[in-house]
């Protein structure tokens, strides 16, 4: 069985939506990290300090079909309810022990 590790990067506070979407599809067992992203803020004169915004990274391991479904679900969830987006990177897993 080919598994994939989904790395879902979203702004702080949005991890819940990701988890909800994943749970609906039956993928439980996600892991969440706190992180910060690179500074993309507008370079105005406001003391031009760099702000690296807070993010959450949600890790979900799933098969290809489930991954497709989860990601579509996540996309739907965000389309409906949020102004901001995020990214999902999908790594192929060689081997899985659980």
């Amino acid at each position, binding site marked *: 069985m080919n598994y994939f590790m989904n790395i879902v990067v979203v702004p702080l*506070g949005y*991890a819940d939506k990701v988890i909800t979407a994943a749970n609906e599809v039956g993928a439980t067992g996600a892991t969440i*990290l706190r992180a910060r992203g690179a500074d993309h803020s507008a370079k105005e004169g*406001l003391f031009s*300090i760099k*702000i*690296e915004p*807070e993010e959450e990274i949600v890790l979900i391991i799933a098969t290809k079909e489930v991954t497709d479904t989860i990601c579509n679900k996540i996309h739907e969830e965000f389309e409906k309810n949020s102004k*901001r987006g995020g*990214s999902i990177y999908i790594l192929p897993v060689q081997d899985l022990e659980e």
Partner: protein
Amino acid sequence: MGLLVSKLEEALFSILPITITILILHFTLTPLDTEIVAKFIFGALLMIIGIPLFLLGIDLSITPIGEQISEVLVKSNKLWLILLGGGFFGFIVTVAEPDLHILADQVKAITSGHFNSNLMILLVSAGVGALVSFGIFRILKNIRLNRFMTVVYLIILALGIFTQPDFLAIAFDASGNTTGAVSVPFILALAVGISVMTRSNEIEENDGFGMLGIASTGAIVAVMIQGLLTATGPISGSLPTAKIVTGSVFHSIWTAIAENGTDTFFVLMPILIIYVVIELIWIRQPLYKLKRIFVGSAYTYIGFVIFLTGINIGFLQASRQVGYQVAAFGKPWLLVLIGMVFGVITIPAEPSVHVLTRQIEDNTAGSIKALRVMLTLCLGVAAAVGLSMLRISIPGLQLWHILLPGMVIAIILSYIVPDIFVGIAYDSGGVAAGTMTSVFILPFAQGAAEFIPGADIVRDSFGIIALVAMTPLVAVQLLGLIYKLKTRPLLSEVSEMDEYMEEI
């Protein structure tokens, strides 16, 4: 040995600003007695060793102890136990705080014995304990910090109307003294631990920040209440001479070590003993983790004793002499300027500031940087000391003229900026007024007040701590405002694929 180098860098960053400033002043504007300079330099050297050792120890022992105790409390699943436990620990760490004992003695002296110092210690500790309980309740019930603090400060305002102005200053001083170098990391770890475990994402969170600010208000309320219940005469102007250690350098060191050694022992022991008891009954960790805590406690103890010895030897007298001489120039603007410099250089030397800012950086994955918060604090405290010097120089200017508007601005800001900044702002207020403020900034003001006629040492110097505890509230929230304004335009995102295509 990369670790040692980085620790040394940190230590130099903390102590060099103060050392260089005093030396520059000594050689230019305010020549000091040679004996004092020698002791000062020796004290600075001690601090370079003491501070990093202490901070390392805190990381290894006090913070994990606080975290584990918060785990035990939360997992008990009993609300009353969590609240009672938190309150109990708030009481314990405060009742042993040496700074509080010193303040109580001072208050007793200036009220000609009317004010019961033992009662004050108990009341303040109880106040802190109670507010820690309320603070935990706030976290568990998701009550927003800005509303909570508005209510608390309204109560303080109400009590304040009936309080003698001098007592107002003393009350705020008590708040500065209660969050000491050991209680800060402990209460912080406790609050963060409870908050992280009971997180619910839907609501914007502070991650447990704000607890130190809440705990400080407990002290304020306690002193005010005691002030209302105690019939005191007018406050007399003579403070008991602060423990100035005279004699040869070696004699000074020995006395200081003995005294600080015992004080620190009684601060750490309660926490360790209670922890060991809890550990044996409930947690039962693997042995190597216990060993880490004990090694850490040793570092904490040794580091703190060295740190306290360092500051007690030379800092107080040096600062007082500088204050007196700067005031002697007769130019208020100079006093304000040097005062502001003192404000800036004191903050990096305060261990609690390092503890708090590091915890902030940890919790936000580095988004809110420790150095940035520290610099904000430096600016805030500079403003506080500058305003205090203004107060000393201008007879008509009273404490509440500055304090009240400041607090109003702070409370208004708390409804505008992101919640986490409200939390760290209130925490910074509690932390900025710490050991270094009492030993370095206060004597400067007292020295200045000695020279200026019409300046009351007690009244004017006691109010400094209040201002140092207040300005960070405004400064840090302004930082939060900048963060908020700068992260808004993030909504526009160009398609990443197209960008990559162009680069290839």
